[in-house]
């Protein structure tokens, strides 16, 4: 019969290193990774990319053909079997129910009309995913909005949404501001876009579309773009004394404005007072000095 095993004392767990309070400064999502590309949808950029990709593909194919000719000549000279001719790679077939919406040439009458009316103030017009986009010069946004609202064949009466995006990787601009216009009577939609650099004050749309008031305040609050001639350019969602602009890409998701509260701290002396009361009920005088 085996002797009963002596109970072994469990090993004491190691005390965790570091402070009890979660260290937000060292948190992985405190580190900000700035984007390296500028995802600004544009027909011109897309066409340039497609042309570059096609040229690269063609160059690769020509090189394959040339290599094949060399290899064939070499094999003939050595009296071996001819190598296999190269096969041009076809794009891999995708059996998903997805059809990526690429930018296309502008065909909508509204966009063409807008280009005709605004002339060289329009930087680009195109369509993507069934949506019409018109990018105008940053100084001309108020004029473009006025044309959209007042021109009888356009009649975009409502500014449905206004928003902005931060592009830290772009060279000659920092933000894109988009205006989503709706024609309530004609059931049409249009997106106006301007690109503005840091420190530029775009004109406020409030005089034409009063609904822009809060939306522009939100853009200022979140991205720090100030609008010229706005009736009340103050923060709207964050407190007035908030520092930084949360939707800029350099703003971390964790850390800023975070308060580290250690609840073990008796900051108001509340716990101490409660302990005194409790001790008093039990007949103990905590205040009594100990005899030396």
């Amino acid at each position, binding site marked *: 019969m085996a002797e009963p095993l002596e109970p072994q004392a469990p090993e004491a767990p190691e005390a965790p290193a570091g402070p009890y309070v979660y260290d937000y400064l060292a948190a992985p999502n405190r580190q900000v990774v700035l984007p390296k590309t500028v995802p600004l949808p544009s027909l011109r950029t897309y066409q340039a990319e497609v042309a570059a990709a096609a040229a690269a593909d063609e160059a690769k194919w020509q090189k394959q053909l040339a290599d094949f000719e060399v290899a064939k000549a070499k094999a003939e000279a050595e009296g071996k079997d001819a190598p296999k001719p190269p096969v041009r790679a076809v794009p891999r077939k995708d059996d998903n129910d*997805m*059809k990526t919406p690429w930018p296309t040439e502008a065909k909508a009458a509204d966009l063409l009309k807008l280009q005709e009316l605004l002339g060289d103030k329009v930087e680009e017009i195109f369509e993507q995913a*069934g949506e019409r986009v018109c990018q105008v010069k940053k100084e001309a946004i108020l004029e473009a909005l006025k044309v959209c609202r007042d021109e009888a064949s356009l009649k975009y009466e409502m500014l449905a949404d206004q*928003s902005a995006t931060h592009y830290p990787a772009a060279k000659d601009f920092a933000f894109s501001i988009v205006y989503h216009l709706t024609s309530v009577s004609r059931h049409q939609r249009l997106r106006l876009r301007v690109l503005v650099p840091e420190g530029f004050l775009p004109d406020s749309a409030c005089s034409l*579309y009063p609904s822009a*008031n809060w939306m522009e305040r939100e853009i200022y609050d979140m991205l720090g773009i100030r609008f010229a001639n706005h009736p009340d350019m103050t923060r709207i969602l964050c407190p007035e004394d908030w520092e930084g602009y949360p*939707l800029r890409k350099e703003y971390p998701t964790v850390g800023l404005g975070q308060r580290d509260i250690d609840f073990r701290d008796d900051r108001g002396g509340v716990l101490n007072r409660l302990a005194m009361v409790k001790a008093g009920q039990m007949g103990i005088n905590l205040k009594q000095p100990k005899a030396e």
Partner: protein
Amino acid sequence: MFKNEEMEINLGPQHPSTHGVLRVKLRLDGETVTKCTPVIGYLHRGVEKICENKTYFQGQVWTDRLDYVAAISNNLGWAEGVEKLFGIEVPRRAKYIRTLLTEQNRLASHLLWLATHALDIGAMTVFLYAFREREYLLDLFEAFCGARLTTTAFRIGGLREDLPPGFIKDAQVFQDRFLHCLYEYEELLTENRIWKKRTVGVAKLNAEDCIALGVTGPVLRAAGVPYDIRKAFPNAAYAEMDFEIPTRTEADTYARYLVRLAEMRQSHRIIQQCLDGLPEGPVMAKIPKILRSEVNEIYHPIEAPKGELGYYFVSEKGGTMPYRMHVRAPSFVNLQALPKMIEGRLLADVIAAIGTLDVVLGEIDR
């Protein structure tokens, strides 16, 4: 001698009839409001920033927390927006089920509006009646996706599951009795003298002001503009549905009440058509497990119970998360019209005006 000075008071942020944490700074001359400034932001959680750091699949969970009484509408906007961004075609059965659930959610949202709006004005009974029906609808949502309010009902590309067994039968039970329930509410309110005194001619906002201020939804339709995104830019299966856009021309609180009740009748019609004509087939499109986007930007509006709910996405090449996500919340834009509606009116009308705008602070502050 009487003192003749204006008084400034705060309505909210802790006030039951502001439906959340809305603070309205009011300047009063006696009982007349001379200036009104809504102060918002008490519920700001930074959903747009959070969604920039979540994948397209994870982000939908956050949309439940925007307009928490109409979470399915928010889910629909997110799912359809992402599908538009990637060019995903959803099966027809999934579209029908989405339409069905969204309309049931519209009923639930309007019932909550009716209950609280009537309660604010002083009619307690309607609250109990409306919550009875709303509970039934929430039970249906729970049967479908396991949650009553924070539903996350849809998936990118369709639905996770088909309707559970018995769902259609239970939904039909609701359909059969709901019209009578509507009749009960109308009997309590429509010709009620106190109700009419508190609502007729109160908080007017005419069509020009509505359009200039970007106000959408029942408030715009009560001003006589037949603008409904379900008809103007049909999404889901609304193009195949037969329904009308109820409008009124009085543009006051009473007209909005009538428009919303008529809208509930139309939602009832749409639900019936979905239940009757539910097509067979799969409910999920074939999509890759990881969605990698191309450079694109879209704005997708849908008709939420409160008005136009729009999702704006900017995507980068090869990205699994949105580069920028912005929500055009209907309550946020509609609340801008509050000063226009109540300046020069009585203090008691402020409560009616906040109720008739049907704002939810979760989506105003985001």
